[in-house]
């Protein structure tokens, strides 16, 4: 800012603080709630200061879960979610970068046609095609399996499209230089295109991981075996399962734990992301 207006600064900060407060407050409440003993919430008053039961609540959800209500300990569910999110992310990234490579760098019949077919699927979210997809997965015997959890969600028009846009900005001379240097298409892809795409891959990794981690409807549909429950649907089962009042303190502890991996991914990837941004140049 050129102008150094004191009151302007204060006002701007007030607005920003207010905005952050609105966003952070629910998260704060969740964290606070996970530290109180059972029964606090039944009274109908939300405490705003940490309680004393944090250790107990967290050890309960991690080691026991709510076995009586059919919810396993969350360690297993976290692991399932992690496997599913990683499978979706890595699958999406590899398939879309390869198809973008094919579309941009190879001249084959109906190239544009295939591109538009991929692009069209952008307009169909998972929910729209969920019934036929379920039928296919069921017929293939992939219910209650990691394959069933991840494979139907792997195809990604968005990532293909983004990679295509990125590849088109890579100067053609780089490819030609590589050809003169004796690098075939695959070598060019591995030695030049992939390293140049690192930032894009990091950014998409974050987005895709969160997408995969937060999958709710699909796992709910195709898993009936608690061994394959994911954490996000686990939370839902915790709230609705059982005869008693929802045990909010445990639910909130689970919520906090479920939010951790995406946060970690963002923190870790952000470093790579920024590093990539500052060190790469086309």
């Amino acid at each position: 800012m050129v102008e150094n207006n004191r009151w302007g600064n204060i006002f701007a900060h007030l607005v920003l603080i207010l905005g952050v407060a609105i966003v952070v407050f629910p998260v704060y409440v969740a964290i606070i709630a996970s530290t109180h003993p059972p029964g606090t919430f039944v009274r109908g008053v939300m405490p705003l200061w940490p309680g004393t039961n944090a250790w107990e609540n967290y050890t309960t959800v991690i080691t026991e879960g709510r076995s009586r209500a059919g919810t396993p300990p969350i360690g297993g569910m976290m692991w399932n979610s992690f496997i599913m999110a990683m499978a979706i992310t890595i699958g999406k990234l590899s398939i879309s970068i390869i198809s973008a490579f094919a579309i941009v760098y190879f001249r084959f019949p109906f190239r544009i046609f295939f591109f538009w077919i991929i692009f069209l699927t952008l307009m169909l979210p998972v929910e729209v095609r969920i019934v036929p997809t379920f039928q296919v997965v069921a017929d293939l015997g992939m219910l209650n399996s990691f394959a069933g959890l991840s494979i139907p969600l792997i195809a990604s028009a968005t990532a293909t499209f983004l990679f295509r846009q990125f590849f088109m900005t890579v100067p053609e001379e780089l490819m030609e230089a590589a050809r003169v240097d004796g690098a075939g298409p695959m070598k060019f892809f591995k030695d030049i295109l992939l390293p140049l795409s690192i930032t894009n891959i990091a950014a998409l990794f974050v987005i895709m991981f969160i997408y995969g981690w937060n999958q709710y409807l699909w796992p709910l549909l195709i898993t009936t075996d608690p061994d394959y429950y994911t954490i996000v649907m686990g939370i839902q089962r915790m709230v609705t399962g059982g005869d008693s009042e929802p045990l909010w303190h445990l639910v909130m502890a689970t919520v906090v734990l479920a939010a951790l991996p995406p946060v970690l991914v963002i923190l870790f990837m952000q470093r790579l992301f920024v590093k990539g941004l500052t060190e790469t140049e086309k």
Partner: protein
Amino acid sequence: MASITMDDLHKVYAGGVQAVTGISLDIEDGEMIVLVGPSGCGKSTLLRMVAGLETISSGTLKIGDRVVNNLEPADRDIAMVFQNYALYPHMTVYNNLAYGLKNRRIPKSEIERRVREAAEMLEIGAFLDRKPRQLSGGQRQRVAMGRALVREPAAFLFDEPLSNLDAKLRVQMRVEIRQLQKRLGTTSLYVTHDQLEALTLADRLVVLNGGVIEQVGTPMDVYRKPASTFVAGFIGSPAMNMISMDYLRENGAGGAVDHLPSGTDLVGMRPDDLVVGAGPEDAVTLKGHVVLVEPAGAESHIYVDLTGSKQPITVRIAGLPELAEGAEVQIHALREALHPYNRETGRRTDTDAAHGPTSVSRRSHVGITS
């Protein structure tokens, strides 16, 4: 090291656009050939055909004794320097140089030796661990050259390598490229649209226009005897003045041009060959008034509108003239400085004559070594 032989090369793009139409050219081993022409003349296409980056529609291309029409660029034993350098941005300078060698499975110690050698030759030894983006334009240019050098190819291909540099650096790199090429004695094909670069670099110059060769020759041959009005206008700066025979006859210069071969209806005169003031009896003398004087340091360009014709002509003189804009002037050109052309064919009319060059620029005796 090898010769390059082009025999009736054609390039037709999908859609029927003819980029290169029947080019035949023999490049001798160790020769530096410059392809020059305006944009769209097919010079880059031709170079890329030699490189293997464009397919050859018809004709034969040989590098050495091998027909390379259908070989991949990497198998043609050539190295190319690109206009925008095309360095691999994520690799260090060392790896940029080494990449092509690694792909050829050359032993590590040999790669190391070649890279160090090239780096020393190009004075980029201090930057080997840096990434391209940490280098200046001139240094990147050197790295791009180095990448070609380490390959020790049969031929170097340069695609307007200096056009992204500033003027001063361009001159410096031009000199260095020429010295390097002479020292290594590697056959080179160099594309540029800059006629000065072409004149200074080439052993032989190939002027292209519309996908065909207008003229091939040593720079001084081309400069002294442009084979067509196109070459006359393209090589030499400022461009050659073209005055119609009719105008010359009507304005009393007929006697000086009557000896030109029949079929001549355009007479070319280089700005350097025009002299302000009255000349000898048999010189072409023109009258006009000064429109603009452009001082350019050691020389000045005078723009003159001829009397009785709207045609502007350019005169180049040394130093600064004592001429005001609007002044009436007489200018003359010696008989030997006339270039006769036919307007319709665009060709020179005195080329069939066996008696050698008739038009010799006064200055061009200096430093002809071809």
